[in-house]
């Protein structure tokens, strides 16, 4: 249960989602990933650490370089997550409540 929450936190961040979509295309070194963002390398490295800690990314040593690739099993697992669906309804119902308060 603890791990699940971590995975969701990992994908809740837009930069981390962008890293996921990048790495989904091909395995990349941390330097190559960081080149795609305006943020500092340290910031991106922290994001990579979080993604690795919850097993969304996997490391692969190739010579002197470390490559990161996506763990498809974990991706499948989080695809079942219902939180984005819940948020969709939450937003919709917030709107309903706001609209109806005018009729009070």
């Amino acid at each position, binding site marked *: 249960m603890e791990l699940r929450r971590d995975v969701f936190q990992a994908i809740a961040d837009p930069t981390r989602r962008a890293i996921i979509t990048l790495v989904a295309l091909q395995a990349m070194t941390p330097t190559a990933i960081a080149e795609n963002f305006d943020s500092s390398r340290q910031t991106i490295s922290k994001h990579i650490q979080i993604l690795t800690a919850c097993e969304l990314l996997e490391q692969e040593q190739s010579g002197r370089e470390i490559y990161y690739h996506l763990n498809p099993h974990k991706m499948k697992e989080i695809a*079942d997550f219902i939180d984005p669906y819940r948020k969709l309804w939450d937003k*919709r*119902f917030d709107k309903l409540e706001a*609209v*109806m308060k005018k009729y*009070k």
Partner: protein
Amino acid sequence: MERKTKIEAEKSKQEIIITREFDLPLELLFKAYVEPEILEQWMGTKVLKLENKPHGGWHFVTTDPMGNQHGFNGVIHEFLPNQKITRTFEMENSSFPVQLEFLEFESLTEGTSRLNMQIVFKSVEDRDNLLKLPFAQGLNMAHNRLQEIVSRIK
């Protein structure tokens, strides 16, 4: 942040239960579902037809940010004011089979109410696919943003 809307989607069951408590009297909550001009405001949709009675039909059209139109329609089976709406729900031009929805409205206090919505799907797989939609859209948005960033660098 408090999670006002609760979603239950038990594993291997072909249904979703959505529960939400509103800071609104029951009558106002129900009204939000039956008056077309009000429904249009909070659903962000255009109501082409809404016949609030058994055997009545409903038809909504939503325009997404890209300008594409999406149609939704169904038939109303039960309509009990301030209590219950039972209806079917179909997404037009999609691979999703029709869904069956049970909406139950109840009063909690004078100023608060609750909506309980049970959505029944044709199969567990269809339900899971629907649950995945917003997640996939989130990823797509991230991907689009990424493409923007990349094209700026080039």
